[in-house]
């Protein structure tokens, strides 16, 4: 009897001694990395390019002084003129987020959000489902003072030893009423791979 108890106790001790105290579960080959690290896995458009472009454009626009009094801005999709697939909407979303955080601009519903906005207004005003006093009135949406639009293009050169990619991102802020470009900036990125 005593031997059996001792055996169980020893087993329990051993088990607790080997217990994993690390707050992780799963394979050791998977790890979380720094989202702000310089990514050079391939020389295609990557996370660092997206972050650098958004950061550079946002800071330049916010500091330019054009956005006085938190004007309403309508953001258009960035035209992708490169040969790669680039989710340009993510660039504009990051730029919008950073400008919003800096407190320099407000944003009107863009092309994609407009349909949802109209649907919601229609639902509230036409369905008869909502209490009258809480219904959002139509005709009160704020029109944009500026529109923000841009493009990204690339030049790719290859030789037996090198692959060189040059990206150029351009962004401009246009006054909707006058049609004048009030602010413009560019960000250039060169990435070279030596084979």
């Amino acid at each position: 009897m005593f031997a059996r108890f001792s055996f169980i106790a020893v087993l329990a001790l051993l088990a607790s001694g080997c217990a994993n105290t690390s707050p992780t579960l799963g394979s050791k080959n998977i790890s979380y990395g720094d989202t702000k690290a310089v990514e050079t896995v391939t020389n295609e458009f990557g996370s660092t390019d997206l972050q650098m472009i958004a950061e550079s454009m946002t800071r330049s626009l916010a500091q330019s002084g054009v956005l006085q009094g938190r004007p309403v801005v309508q953001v258009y999709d960035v035209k992708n003129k490169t040969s790669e697939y680039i989710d340009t909407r993510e660039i504009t979303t990051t730029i919008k987020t950073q400008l919003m955080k800096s407190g320099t601009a407000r944003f009107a519903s863009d092309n994609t959000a407009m349909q949802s906005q109209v649907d919601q207004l229609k639902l509230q005003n036409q369905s008869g489902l909502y209490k009258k006093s809480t219904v959002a009135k139509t005709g009160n949406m704020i029109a944009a003072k500026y529109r923000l639009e841009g493009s990204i293009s690339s030049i790719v050169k290859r030789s037996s030893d090198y692959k060189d990619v040059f990206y150029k991102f351009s962004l401009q802020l246009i006054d909707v009423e006058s049609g004048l470009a009030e602010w413009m900036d560019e960000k250039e990125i060169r990435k070279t791979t030596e084979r």
Partner: protein
Amino acid sequence: MRFKLFAVAALAVLASGCATPPPPEPGSAASKVVAMGPQKHIAVGAMRVARENGFMTVNVQLTNTLNSNKTFYYRFAWLGPEGFPIAEEEVWKSQMMYGAQTSFIQGIAPTPKAVDFRLELKTP
């Protein structure tokens, strides 16, 4: 007597060897640089700090002390009045400098609330 002098000299040498360099003066350019590890062949020069349209803007002069090209990584950290970061960390940027080149890097604060900054530098 001779032994005593030798002992004093040895003590002085030991003490100077163990002495750590004095910390940079608060507000000086050196106090704004956070070197992530040894700073190899990149010398930090003058810094210009200005406020443009409410946003803190920093220009830093850097020199490559090598005669060959040198790549380094940098980013700015923006601090509020309490000395804590007021925005998300910036993305690390990679910059190449030609041999013996002097160039400038510029940083613009993400919000007008920034009153101070740190330049994080990393040389591979």
